[in-house]
């Protein structure tokens, strides 16, 4: 592998001044490790493959415990409940909206039903009014007809009475004419003057016979 420039710079410094271990604390066991691995300066400052550098483990474990512990607490106490609340709220809201929609639909259905009921009632009422009007018109027409018929009948009766009256008068005149005529005829035939009373009686006799 490569002898890194970084190592090339730090290695002499580290060997010269052990105080430099403040900057590179893992260089402290480096001397031992170098002899163990036998490949000095192979990797970084310690000579071991960095992830297997045990010297870094306590620090990594402690800091992992601190950071992950804090992270877990924040997730547990803040983030997870908050996300659960957000999703729960949305779920509840959707469920509430759905039930509200269902309620409104039921309301609309009820309104439609009421409307149809009222429409049917109005139709029935309209039909009733029409029937009543028809009935009233019918009775009125019947009454009018009856009145007119009565009037006509009375007029007819009056006319008949007048006709009878005229007829009677005519018949009465017929007596006079017949008497005159009979008197004339008798005068012509027999040349005898007839008294009015005789002729009248004769005519009346004929009339009754007729």
């Amino acid at each position, binding site marked *: *592998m*490569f002898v*890194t*420039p*970084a*190592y090339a710079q730090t290695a002499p410094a580290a060997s010269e001044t052990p105080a430099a271990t*403040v*900057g*590179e*604390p*893992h260089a402290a066991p480096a001397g031992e490790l170098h002899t163990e691995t036998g490949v000095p300066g192979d*990797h*970084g*400052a310690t000579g071991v*493959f*960095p*992830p*297997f*550098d045990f*010297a*870094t*483990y*306590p*620090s*990594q*474990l*402690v*800091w*992992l*415990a*601190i*950071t*992950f512990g*804090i*992270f*877990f607490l*924040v*997730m*547990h106490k*803040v*983030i*997870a409940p*908050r*996300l*659960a*609340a*957000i*999703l729960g*709220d*949305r779920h509840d*809201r959707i469920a509430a909206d759905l039930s509200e929609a269902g309620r409104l639909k039921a309301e609309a259905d009820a309104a439609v039903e009421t409307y149809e009921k009222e429409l049917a009632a109005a139709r029935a009422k309209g039909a009733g009014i029409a029937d009543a009007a028809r009935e009233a018109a019918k009775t009125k027409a019947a009454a009018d007809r009856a009145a007119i018929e009565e009037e006509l009948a009375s007029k007819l009766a009056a006319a008949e009475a007048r006709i009878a009256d005229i007829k009677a008068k005519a018949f009465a005149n017929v007596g006079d004419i017949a008497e005159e005529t009979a008197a004339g005829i008798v005068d012509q035939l027999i040349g005898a003057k007839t008294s009015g009373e005789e002729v009248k009686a004769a005519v009346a006799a004929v009339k009754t016979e007729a």
Partner: protein
Amino acid sequence: MANDPTHQFVVQPIIPMEIGGWDLSFTNASLFMVATVAAATGFLYFATASRSLIPGRMQSVAEMSYEFIAGMLREGAGTKGMVFFPFVFSLFMFVLTANLLGMFPYFFTVTSQIIVTFALAVLVIGTVIVYGFYKHGLHFLGIFAPQGVPKVLLPLVSSIEVISFLSRPISLSVRLFANMLAGHITLKVFAGFVTSMGALGAVGIGGAVLPLIMTVAMTGLEFLVSFLQAYVFAVLTCMYLNDAVHGGH
């Protein structure tokens, strides 16, 4: 330095500190752990800050990650496993963010350290063991004795089950570690070819096109691997937690 493909994994102290004889320096690894936590927390916190009923882009991503892990956990460990949601969610987000942060040039990849992935895997298996015994007592050992196995074969099957159980933290940690490590080394090596060939004059520059294309393609692949490994880690965690939740039934 520029050409050493393993240099990127070197842990270097930034703030040296030693407590009780242990070197607990704040290193570049620590810095990127903090950065990972800060990035993931910051994103999730601000993305969900408005708590909109109709989510924006950021909030959609946060919600998707939530539903992704929740679905994974419900499928893997059942509804009872949902108590582990914050744990699995933290693991997934931490690993994913660490992997993705590692894709930035000159950034340290937290998950390319075996000790980190091993610690996370031990945390998972430790959780399984502790919760399993807490929930089921000694019945938890029933996971090593699958039902319907003839009594003659039981010792053999049980020993296999025990070995498989014990190898879980190793496979879980090595899978993530090796993927991140190998990917970053490969990227570095191919990128190194570009520069070293480019130094060879006109022919070298012409030839450097190939590793350059390779580097670009590998970068895309590494983003996929970053997500995939976080996903695999989370899925396996869910499956292992299933043992803890349901015991040997």
